[in-house]
């Protein structure tokens, strides 16, 4: 497609993608260039690669596989508390890892609620540590995200299609074949790739729930190369491997995710006429209830353990909370500045390379990006002075893959539906963006911004290398409290973090869909 046949230019998007690629590969190169010694790959590295791939594949398939019926049920049903449930779906994803692990173990651990319940019945405790524990934790983190991504796919099907299908007497099965299955073929590969990429760079979750060094992932090997051996060459090599694996997965996903959209509708509210039989209602209800219980129990555990310490929280925790809000706000703005042009460029047919650039943010090891940025920045500026912008920027790049998954399908729909109309009205450039594109993408922008803000709030990110003594974020403060034995205060601070992240997510997500029904 030539530039002249489009209402907007893809150039800003290409520029943003180039910036992201430069950040990821620039930092990787900076680390590699500092390398003095270098050790090749050994047997233990291949074992780490195998374990990483196994757990990431299993986690991605299970998270997305389970998300499909949950999203379908949520798309078909309207019930009291549905909105809150959908917002809460964002919660597991944004928790600092250490908090989420403790929450999960309070439910599924050896001394957890389930094991205690089993003990009352005279049964053995649940054995959580192992590959299945790693996968369970990753499903806990990613099922909600996958559900939201797929739910959005359902909402992209124009209401007219459902109306037409209903008029033609299509039952659930026909609806599935005509509308839902083609939509899933477009959406699911991208969701799989994102979850796979997240799980690929997992470290603390995999190690703790994996039960020991059997559960060594590539990210842990990078960590070891950096701090145990100080072998930067190896750290860079392993990080490059991680990028290649994610890149391959993303390419496969993009290749598979084909199919046309559903064309234009009148942008009206969705109403469904199918799935009214009692058995369908029962099944949908079951899926929603199971997912809700699975996700809410560990969150409940976190809330319960946080409440007692809440009143005695030191002032420095609140100061750190303010810093975290600042980082989150800046990071959200940066994210939108990167993601919106990129999503538009993808919608204009400049897909492949830009989408690939977007997903690499997840695969890049935060340790390597942080170290690389440090090597680059240190000679020219004071790293402490840059703590805030650097953290915000890295968080934005990490959130980029999610934002693109959210924004791209909608941008494609909008450009496809209104692009030619706008051209015929000679509406180009900024007026098109301002009057057509942005208003139609408002719910997606809100969702992406909410996710970015919440993610950024909960992320420890690269702060460790840039930590200014006077600039602590809330996740850092939680770790410090734990490091000082103050587990109760840490649990309370984690509750504050959870509340803040949820609030940011809620406000931005709601702000985007004030007129929409979901």
């Amino acid at each position, binding site marked *: 497609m030539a530039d002249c046949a489009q209402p907007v230019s893809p150039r800003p998007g290409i520029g943003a993608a180039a910036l992201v690629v430069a950040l990821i590969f620039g930092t990787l190169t900076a680390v590699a260039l500092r390398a003095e010694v270098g050790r090749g790959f050994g047997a233990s590295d291949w074992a780490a690669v195998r374990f990483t791939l196994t757990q990431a594949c299993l986690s991605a398939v299970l998270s997305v596989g389970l998300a499909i019926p949950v999203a379908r049920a949520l798309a078909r049903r309207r019930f009291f508390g549905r909105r809150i449930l959908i917002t809460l779906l964002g919660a597991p994803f944004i928790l600092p890892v250490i908090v989420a692990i403790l929450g999960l173990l309070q439910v599924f*651990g050896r001394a957890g609620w389930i094991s205690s319940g089993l003990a009352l019945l005279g049964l053995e405790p649940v054995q959580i540590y192992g590959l299945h524990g790693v996968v369970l934790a990753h499903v806990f983190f990613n099922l909600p995200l996958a559900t939201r991504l797929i739910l959005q796919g359902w909402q992209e099907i124009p209401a007219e299609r459902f109306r037409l299908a209903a008029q033609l007497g299509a039952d659930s099965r026909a609806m599935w074949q005509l509308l839902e299955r083609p939509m899933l073929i477009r959406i699911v590969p991208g969701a799989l790739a994102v979850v796979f990429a997240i799980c690929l760079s997992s*470290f603390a979750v995999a190690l703790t729930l994996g039960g020991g060094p059997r559960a060594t992932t590539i990210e842990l090997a990078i960590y070891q190369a950096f701090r145990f051996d100080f072998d930067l060459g190896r750290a860079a090599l392993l990080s490059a491997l991680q990028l290649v694996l994610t890149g391959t997965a993303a390419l496969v996903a993009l290749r598979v995710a084909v199919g046309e959209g559903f064309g234009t509708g009148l942008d009206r509210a969705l109403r469904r006429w199918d799935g009214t039989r009692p058995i369908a209602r029962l099944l949908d209800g079951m899926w929603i209830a199971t997912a809700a219980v699975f996700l809410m129990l560990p969150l409940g555990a976190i809330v319960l353990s946080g409440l007692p310490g809440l009143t005695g929280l030191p002032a420095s925790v609140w100061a750190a909370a303010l810093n975290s809000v600042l980082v989150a706000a800046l990071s959200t703005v940066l994210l939108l500045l990167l993601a919106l042009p990129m999503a538009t460029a993808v919608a204009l047919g400049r897909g492949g390379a830009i989408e690939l650039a977007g997903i690499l943010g997840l695969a890049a090891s935060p340790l390597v990006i942080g170290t690389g940025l440090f090597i680059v920045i240190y000679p020219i500026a004071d790293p402490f002075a840059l703590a805030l912008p650097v953290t915000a920027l890295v968080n934005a790049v990490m959130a980029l893959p999610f934002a693109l998954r959210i924004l791209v399908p909608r941008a494609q729909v909008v450009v496809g539906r209104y692009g030619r109309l706008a051209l015929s009205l000679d509406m180009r450039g900024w007026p098109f963006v301002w009057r057509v594109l942005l208003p139609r993408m408002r719910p997606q922008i809100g969702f992406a911004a909410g996710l970015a803000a919440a993610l950024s709030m909960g992320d420890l990110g690269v702060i460790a290398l840039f930590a200014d*003594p006077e*600039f602590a974020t809330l996740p850092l403060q939680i770790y410090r409290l734990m490091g000082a034995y*103050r587990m109760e205060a840490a649990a309370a601070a984690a509750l504050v973090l959870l509340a803040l992240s949820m609030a940011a997510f809620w406000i931005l997500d709601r702000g985007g869909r004030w007129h929409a029904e979901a």
Partner: protein
Amino acid sequence: MKYLVIAAGILSTTAAVADVPELTVYTYDSFVSDWGPGPAVEAAFEEVCGCDLKLVGAGDGAALLARIKLEGARSDADVVLGLDTNLTAAAKATGLFAEHSVVADYTLPVAWGDKIFAPYDWGYFSFVQNADATAPTNFKDLAASDTKIVIQDPRSSTPGLGLLMWVKAAYGDEAPAIWADLSDNIVTVTKGWSEAYGLFLEGEADMVLSYTTSPAYHLIAEEDDSKAAALFDEGHYLQVEVAGKLANSDQPELADQFLDFMVSEAFQSIIPTTNWMYPAVTPAAGLPAGFETLVQPGKSLLLTEDEAASVRDAALDEWLTALSQ
């Protein structure tokens, strides 16, 4: 990037203070935290030095060393505080550190003669458990019992590496067999101390690798005497935490003054109830009430820094092999 620099300049809170010399000390993160020794140490030193003491936290001991290696000779740091004897050999190999002039009457369980690094506190690694549980008396006893433990990964955690050295120092070539026997006692391995201690407090394990001084925190800060350290008869491995000054410091006199201050009464009396370790020089008033209840190992184990550096990789391989079965 230019805009980021400008934005950072506006948002930065670290405005340079004119005239007053600044001493920059890199340390680990929990030292500078509001609950660590940092704030009190800073106030006490600034009272006597006529300077601005800037404490910078950088992860833990190993991350601290990595940071210094990254910055190299250009580093702004004048003093590095928080390495231990597992790291000092590698730190010296960088050639970035200068000899110190500290003279003190150390109350360490071992003799100290290091010319580059001076100690400021120490502790024994130990398994911590609930006081009412029966404690195993050594690693073999622990391995034979069905006591569940949670430990830290030596690749990502300082105590984790300490445990590796402990087993190696106590058992030498027998270490792989000890690890193999322990493998069914290990509930899980965590990234760092905080995760492990958190899991222990939640009841996921009967014991956690920590320090003999950990029960002192619960006793003194929480008035809770329900935690105890298990005394092992093969001896306990020592962690000695040290500081050194950088050869390229632009404040060498101030750095020396800080190191002297570090072994003085004012600094040493802050350590026990903020860092929860033993001070390197016991203060005149003795240790805080509660420390007398802590277990006293009959034997201290400590590999010299050269031994530690030479057995480290092999010990890690043994550990990985034994626990990956």
